[in-house]
């Protein structure tokens, strides 16, 4: 499972990276979202998969999967949500002000 998950993460990274390398702002944001999924799955994979029950003490199992990566991912998801929201708003504000969502046209000119 870990091997396959690693490959899946790799593919997600590939797709995300490709999207980030395009010009369109929306695609770039989509790319970051895909990469973020990749990252979260990667952390989970690196913590070991399916080695025990859910990390809840009340449900009768005696072995538990590693809870620490889960907690880390949770924090990461939230922070990623915050930055994504910010980035989204930033891109549409940039579009409003600059009239383009093409990063190739956002190079900035000398006359400012």
């Amino acid at each position: 499972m870990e091997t396959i998950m690693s490959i899946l993460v790799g593919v997600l990274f590939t797709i995300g990276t490709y999207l980030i390398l395009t010009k369109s702002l929306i695609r770039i944001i989509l790319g970051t979202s895909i990469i973020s999924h990749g990252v979260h799955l990667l952390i989970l994979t690196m913590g070991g998969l399916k080695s025990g029950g859910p990390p809840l003490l009340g449900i009768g199992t005696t072995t538990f999967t590693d809870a620490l990566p889960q907690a880390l991912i949770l924090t990461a998801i939230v922070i990623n949500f915050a930055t994504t929201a910010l980035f989204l708003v930033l891109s549409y504000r940039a579009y409003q002000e600059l009239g383009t969502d093409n990063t190739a046209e956002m190079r900035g000119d000398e006359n400012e």
Partner: protein
Amino acid sequence: MTILHIMILIPFVFAIFVPLFYKYFNKRLHTGWFVILIPIIIFVYLLQLIPKIASGATIYETIPWIPSFGINLDMYVDGLSLIFGLLITGIGALVILYSIYYLSKEKEALHNFYVYLLLFMGAMLGLVFSDNILVLYVFWELTSISSFLLIAYWYEREKSRYGAQKSMLITIFGGLAMLSGFIMLSMITDTYSIREMFAMSETIIAHDLFLPAMILILLGAFTKSAQFPFSIWLPDAMEAPTPISAYLHSATMVKAGIYLVARLTPIFGGTAEWFWIISTVGLITLLYGSFNAVKQIDLKGLLAYSTISQLGMIMSLLGIGSAALYFGYGNEAAMYAAAITAAIFHMINHSTFKGALFMVVGIVDHETGTRDIRRLGGLMTVMPITFTVALIGSFAMAGLPPFNGFLSKEMFFASVVKVMEMDAFNMETLGVLFPIIAWVASIFTFIYSMILVFKTFRGKYKPERLEKKAHEAPIGMLIAPIILASLVIVIFFFPNVIADLLLVPAVAAILPSLMEENVLEIHISAWHGFSAELYMTIGVVVIGTIMYLTLKKWTKVYRLYPQNLTINALYNNGLESSQRIAASITNKYMTGYTRDYLAYIFTFFVLLIGGTLIVSNSITIDLTNDAPVNIFEMAIILSMLVAAFTVLLAKSRLTAIISLGVLGYLVSLFFVIFRAPDLALTQLVVETVTTALFLLCFFHLPKFKEQTKKQKKGVPFKPLNLIISIAVGAVVTVFALSANGTQIFEPIASYYEDSYELAGAKNIVNAILVDFRGIDTMLEIFVLCIAALSVYTMIKLRLSRREK
């Protein structure tokens, strides 16, 4: 805090008050009158040290500055530094006196001028008296800076700024080289004290870093002393007010390099490298400077090149003299020690006559409004006193009796003749070049000295070509040059007073081993029979006179040399093209295009991480510990891949968002499969809210269509991007597999399984979040809060719109 320290630091302290004096008293009294007190006081203080130093004693005083690093104000007075100290303050006083008349108190920003000047004076004193190389470096750079400020004193002028920049770049470059040399020295010897290094000379010479350290330090000395090819800054430094040219750029600052070489001779001297580098560079500079001085049309330019040439001469003498240390003791050594004596002696002489000449040129400039040789002439009758001073100075410079220049020039000739016979450092083959170069350069020296005095003061008086009506300068302005000119003569007649009081201790400081031997005896005389050097002088005078008279015929030779190949042109082109090249390099990679930056970053990522993985041979793929996979999970993975690819290839943004939503759902399904209920919950909510945000923002964002109208495909295909992204994915995967294959340690997680006892919570993840790692959660919601504020301000605050 000893008197010595006070003397060195007082210029700095006083500099702070100069603007106040300027502000409150300048209308009544020229600020210079306040300032002149400082050099006089220090000069007198140093004068009274002479007997003590002449008797062979030295003074060492220290106060801590940064004692933990061994950087202290270790001040050390011996013969060598005393001479410099006297020069700095003596000439300094005269220059200030001169400047009081030279610079108008109404028009000039005198507070700036005198602050810079005092800064320089203090720095220079610190430089020569410091025993600590780092402190020496501190003062060294301060002299560069104050010189920079003084050259650009008339900062409105383009040329001043150009000259200032040039001198700063070159001297600070040298300073940095010197610093690195010093650092190497201190690494070898483990001390910053020059005196302690003397004792370790042999260790230093044997060390691997000896040669680089020496060369780097010499770079510093050469740039400061305007040695070839670093001399180019000095002519442009003549944009400074003339008192400054007289003071910094002929008498004192440019001699800092000389001082350094002399000061370090006990450490490096006696080695072939030291001997050759210094004497060769000195001789080349001598020839180059004198040769170029002849073709100058600006009087100050002429003096600048003449200074370069004279500095070269002093430098070469120091080089030759260093051979004394090779022989260590005995008469052979004493013979070369004479070269050192000559160097120091000529340095003093040079300061006197060149100072006088600069002041004369300043007077001419001041009174006529020009320094152009072609426009001047016949001033002899108008300005007789000035002429007399100029004559004395020029003849001294040309090496004619009865002026002090003659004495030192003779000693110089004697040294280069003697050095031919030396049987060390391969002198037997190349030694013959020394006297030839010296002699040729002296001819040029003779010629330009004649040009200086006769072209200006003889010939036809052309008042129509002058800016003002010329007349003799006010007496105040003449005092300083007259004093110097009389010194020129006095020294010629009583050279041994100087020799006994100043030269002997100085040479003793440079060649300590000889001092112990007691072979050091300096006796300077104007007449020592018909020796080789006398014939050389006669030759110089004869040929020089002939050439001076036929000047017009052969100066065309100069034009044969292409203008754009001069070092100056190289500097200018280099500076300009370096800016241009720098701009083109920077613009090449700093495109302002995010994609390019990301491409660099990803490429570097792949190279660095992938490279490390491969080079460190840590790619291990171990499948044995893998959890089992079933068909259901495979299918979900397949669906995820499909969804991800749909995001990639989607032609419309909504499709992409929906696919992203699917991807998010599937990820949370994975969280379920991997026993992470909290994660699944969070992922779901966040996914939905994000999707909603996307939709909200889409109202304000353009559609995909608009930009991909031309091509049918949704996302443009770029092979390079694809390669980069595949490489990134591959690195991430391979790393993940390797990391998974080499789990060296047990995770710390088992501790948290007691969360009920520890934190009273049965949900371990929640316990970690709110208890074990509560700070993470606290900061995480804090991040959310800031994000909310940021979104709010981004949307609400629109300054650019408001301006419209």
